[in-house]
């Protein structure tokens, strides 16, 4: 198990007996005085597709970003699939974080493709320079992924020549090229024009059908309902309610969730 | 004041001359820049062509060379004109040269600033039946300053430092006084470092002043770092 204990300086090798792909215990994250994540615990098993819902400011994105240390957590434990990381400052800590990030693929709301590289170059960059793949291997992998996301003919295009939906699918391919254990999606369709959303969701659903472990922060409630096997609802940095989609959408127990769902139904925008 | 070895007064006098040159050139240069910008933006073809030529040429020649041209060229011209040997005053030549240089760059700053005033402001003025001239004077010009400030600030700092070049033709500015003192005392390090410190002071004070000005002008629109 990757056990991450920030700032304690302890080096503990612990083998956990849970088979969980992801295990978060009592995570806390502060920005200055503002505590955004207040003691959150979460477990994801192999093959789980968890949709994370909640209103703005509930800490959804921050949670994801804490997992791959784009925002270093202040407290808590993060276990990932059986190996251990001590999140210490300095070179060793950084190496471990980089190793962790190889296993956690992330897809951003704003795609974040490298504009000065072609589609193909975007996808093979990390496999070649981080994983050490040969150019041939990396290109092979990239071609498969481009087929998978339906954009094989765009391999030599530059991101600025593509639509938002196409860019996001390339971003997904780029993340997949590292063959991560877990995929993190941070509002993957929020920056897209409505007519482009469907294509991206199709790709994400295909990945879920493959049995990948995925955490998806999203506002697409219908999609969340169809694709996930668990919904997690965040409110002010804590889990307000979680459960299987049917239970969550049809019989929510928390009043806040009910309010959230009704506001979405009435068409209030987030 | 053994550090200054008696040259303290001289240094101060030189510093004052430096500021005089800089400020004079600033005022004149802004005037030239405004004219140039208006020629580029509003002017008829020939005027615009002239302004383009002016900025292109001046920005492609070293300031030192311009100073030398005006000083030595001016001397030759005046001598020929008046029939006897007349030397151009270093102060005048310096200010003239720096004004020309500042004006060329300022033309570009003002031109960009004029174009940066939002179209909507101009349209509103027209809708209120303001003539083109009035619109320019009452609406565009005042707003333009806000956009011009960062660029002008940079140009001022450059101007301050370029004044040192006039010492080459003998102007008794800070740089020249430092050179004289350095030569007399065989202590160049001290005096040039003092000169550097003084220039740094002028620069720093200017930076603070500019920051305050930009604050006052609303948010000075930063075009770029």
């Amino acid at each position, binding site marked *: 198990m990757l056990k991450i204990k920030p700032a304690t300086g302890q080096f503990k090798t612990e083998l956990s007996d849970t088979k969980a792909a992801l295990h978060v215990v009592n995570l806390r994250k502060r920005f200055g005085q503002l505590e955004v994540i207040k003691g959150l615990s979460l477990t994801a098993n192999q093959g789980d597709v968890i949709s994370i819902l909640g209103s703005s400011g509930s800490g959804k994105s921050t949670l994801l970003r804490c997992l791959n240390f*784009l925002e270093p957590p202040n407290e808590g434990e993060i276990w990932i699939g059986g190996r251990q990381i001590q999140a210490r400052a300095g070179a060793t800590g950084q*190496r471990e974080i*980089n190793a962790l*990030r190889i296993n956690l*693929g*992330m897809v951003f*709301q*704003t795609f*974040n493709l*490298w*504009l*000065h590289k072609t589609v193909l170059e975007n996808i093979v960059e*990390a496999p070649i320079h*981080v994983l050490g793949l040969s150019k041939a291997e990396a290109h092979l992998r990239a071609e498969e992924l481009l087929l998978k996301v339906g954009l094989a003919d765009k391999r030599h295009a*530059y*991101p*600025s020549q593509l*639509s*938002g939906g196409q*860019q996001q699918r390339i*971003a997904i391919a*780029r*993340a997949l090229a*590292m063959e991560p254990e877990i995929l993190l999606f941070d509002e993957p369709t929020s920056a*897209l024009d409505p007519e482009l959303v469907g294509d991206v969701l199709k790709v994400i659903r295909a990945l879920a059908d493959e049995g990948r472990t995925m955490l998806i922060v999203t506002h697409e409630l219908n999609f969340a309902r169809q694709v996930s096997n668990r919904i997690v609802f965040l409110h002010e940095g804590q889990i307000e309610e979680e459960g299987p989609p049917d239970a969550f959408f049809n019989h929510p127990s928390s009043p806040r969730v009910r309010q959230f769902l009704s506001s979405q139904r009435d068409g209030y925008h987030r | 004041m053994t550090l200054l070895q008696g040259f303290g007064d001289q240094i101060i006098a030189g510093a004052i001359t430096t500021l005089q040159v800089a400020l004079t050139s600033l005022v004149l240069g802004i005037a030239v820049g405004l004219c140039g910008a208006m020629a580029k933006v509003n002017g008829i073809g020939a005027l615009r062509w002239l302004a383009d030529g002016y900025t292109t*040429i001046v*920005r*492609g*020649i*070293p300031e030192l*060379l311009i100073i*030398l*041209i005006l000083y*030595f*060229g001016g001397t*030759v011209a005046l001598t020929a004109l008046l029939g006897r040997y007349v030397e151009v005053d270093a102060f005048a030549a310096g200010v003239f040269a720096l004004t020309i240089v500042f004006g060329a760059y300022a033309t*570009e*700053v003002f031109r*960009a600033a004029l174009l940066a005033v939002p179209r909507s402001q101009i349209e509103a003025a027209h809708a209120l039946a303001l003539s083109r001239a009035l619109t320019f004077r009452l609406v565009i010009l005042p707003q333009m300053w806000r956009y011009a400030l*960062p*660029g002008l600030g*940079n140009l001022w700092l*450059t101007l301050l*430092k*370029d004044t040192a*070049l006039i*010492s*080459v033709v003998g102007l008794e500015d800070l740089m020249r006084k430092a050179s004289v003192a350095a030569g007399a005392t*065989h*202590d*160049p*390090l001290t005096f*040039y470092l003092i000169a*550097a410190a003084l*220039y*740094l002071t002028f*620069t720093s004070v200017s930076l603070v002043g500019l920051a305050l000005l930009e604050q006052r002008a609303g948010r000075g629109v930063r*075009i*770029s*770092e």
Partner: protein
Amino acid sequence: MNWYLVIDAMPRLLSGALLTLQLAALSVLAGLVIALPLSLLRSSSSGVLSRPVLAYTFVFRGTPLLVQLFVIYYGAGQIEWIRTTSAWIILREPYWCALIAFSLNNAAYTTEILRGGIRAVPAGEVEAAKALGMSYALRTRRIVLPIAFRLALPAYANEVVLMLKASSLASTITIMELTGTSRKIVAQTFSPYEVFISAALIYLAITFVVVKAFARLERHLAHHLERVEKNNGGTDPVHKGPVQELDRDPVLQREAR
């Protein structure tokens, strides 16, 4: 206008121009080499790394190049340990003093220009590199610096031109580059117009070539931003519109020397 004089002076002027080019090119090269690591330090979030570099750039950008030149040329000989070591062999030569002064000065401006470029790299693209497990060294080398260079190019081109013009200051410490040579000829012939204007024209020609070269480089590096104007051409989700170039009027960025 004495054309014969111009023709007669031209070989010497051109040879001076060669020295000008040499000085400028070497200073720009050295400045870039120095500025690269310094700009990374300067972009660091750690004050301990960034502030000393800031002190350096502040001093060298806040004082006239002429003063810096004189401090090095006239002042070096005053320092005991310089005079007695092998450093003196270098520092008593005007050519090397000029090179050192120009390089340090150019490096200071280039450091700040590169830093500006680094800061302008879209944060999302850097985060993507992080999220893919790229180390600081890897992502700086492969992602941040290439983007930063392109963004900094207009300001940098400007700086190169300024350096070219600043090389004329070498004439104040006896170096016979273009300005120095023309001054000497003027002193001999008492014809400031013909000689100085010829020198000015040569400078203009050089700067013209440099500016054009950089413009071509900018165009070449930006071709990946060309938009395909079909349905839903590329959109920039961060700025909610077509992919933008940073506004980049070089004059507005003209840094004080």
